[in-house]
């Protein structure tokens, strides 16, 4: 789990910070406003892509594991914790 947290932090640094930095670095002169909008849209599309890919994978995983790890599945076996006071 620590590696997952680490991965998230790295993604945040790589994806969000440079884009926001660019957005803030832009001046307020006419024309540059449009550039900032493009940068934010770009950030949004990248994040949406990540969010929906991860979402699809996790949702698919949940559906599969609900089927696979149900107690009535032919391959279901007791967990190491059963019979203990965990």
């Amino acid at each position, binding site marked *: 789990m620590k590696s997952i947290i680490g991965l998230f932090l790295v993604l945040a640094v790589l994806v969000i910070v440079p884009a926001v930095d660019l957005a803030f670095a832009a001046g307020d002169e006419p024309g540059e406003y449009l550039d900032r909008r493009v940068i934010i849209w770009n950030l949004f599309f990248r994040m949406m892509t990540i969010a929906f890919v991860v979402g699809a994978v996790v949702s698919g995983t949940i559906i599969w594991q609900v089927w696979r790890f149900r*107690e009535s599945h032919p391959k279901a076996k007791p967990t190491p*914790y059963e019979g*203990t006071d965990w």
Partner: protein
Amino acid sequence: MVLELQKPRPIWQIMFSTHHTDVGLLYLILSIGFLFLGGALALIIRAELFLPGAQIIGDAMTFNRIFTVHGTTLIFLFILPFASSVGNYFVPIMIRYKDMAYPKLNALAFWMIPPGGALIWLGFADFSWYANPPYSIISAPGPAADMWIFGLKILGISSVLGAINFIVTILKCKHPDMSIGQVPLLAWSFLSSSLIILVAIPTFAAALLMLLTDRLGVTGFFNPAMGGDPIAYAHLFWFTFHPEVYVLVIPAIGMMYEIIPRFSRKPIHSYNSGIFAFVLLSIVGFSSWAHHMYATGMSFTEKTVFMVGTLAAVPASALHVFNFVATMWNGRIKFSTPMMWAVGGIALFFSAGAGGVANAAMPLDFTTHDTYWVVGHFHLFVMGTIAFGSFGFMYYMYPYVTGRMYNEALGKIHFIMSFIGTILVFFTQHVLGLYGMPRRVFDYPPIPEWIAMNQIASIGAMIIGVSMVIFLANIIHSAGKGKLADTDDPFGVGGKYYYPFEARNPSH
């Protein structure tokens, strides 16, 4: 509390008790009562919108009153009191203390809710749960609006008292052998949400006072005619109520943390990441309030900050989901009713979160602002995640509260019908919003797509309504006639339950 029904006591002994399970029972009964009252209003709203034109409600103002009280009731009088019920029952047991830290304060916090609820229901205000200024200060008819303000004031004080009690109980009364890093995640969820309440609610308390003095004509904080700014109210309101979303959702996730390992027959995969995600959600909850106000003329820089702040909640929410997935992995999952609700809640949590990502992006927000998309998104969170987690936990704690088992088949029917109904209502409302239908409207033009989608949503709502009747019949009938529960392991899944059989209702 098995004790209550097996050794019946006069009702007044429970009502005037300060013991945590008695107060928990009172919270539970009150929250279920208001669930049905608020739910009935939802069905009236959906029946009205089944077709364009006036159907069963005479006028727009009555419609406004109904959806105002519907929202206020289900948020403040169902979800929050139900969470308090769970906290009262389980937090002292989990931290191994005899009661809450301040039992009398605990009872007082509960007994502030009925008068607060009565003020809201007897007033029946019409300005939405947001109390839109300047309408709320200039034109909203009194005394309904004033009663709503006083009702919310009382409920806010009750929340703060309850939060103080949970924080002190968890931090100061936990067993000396138990470090804060060993407190169960359900108790951690109450610690996190209570800290949010303490920081967030005072802002709304101030806003309510300003609203009241504006209505009295003494001040003009939010009155443009007196130089005030209604947008200032929006900031104060959402500074409280965006974090409040997390106050609602965090205990529901905590409940899932109790249910999912139990029925997977495994401990939680990563306890520390659960704590980390709770704390992270509590912090980032305060970095996103202005995403409700993109359309009010904020600068581009401000909007960017709040867009990124909003998206920061995604990793924290995802951590919880990953934790649940990893816990179920290699488990031997028993799909009893509580587990079905919990897994359904996770699935809908993901869908609601995806809608939230779209909402957070300002360009898309301008398209969806004040449309039915927002209604669908918000309700998918509140019903699909929070209420699903709560219903799962109602079934989970049922043997503990009554000493009897509910009817499992009816519980599963309740879940399946609610799941289908929730998808029909709230997914459809997302699409309806993209088709441009504004929210909070009594009537709409007879556009064929709008009519069809409203009818789908209304049918979904009726399915949920029928499932709730089944739920009510199940819990009432089973409380008296249900099979006696095996109080050591009511669900037959093993492990160590936090059921306080040793708590024998000591009198205070």
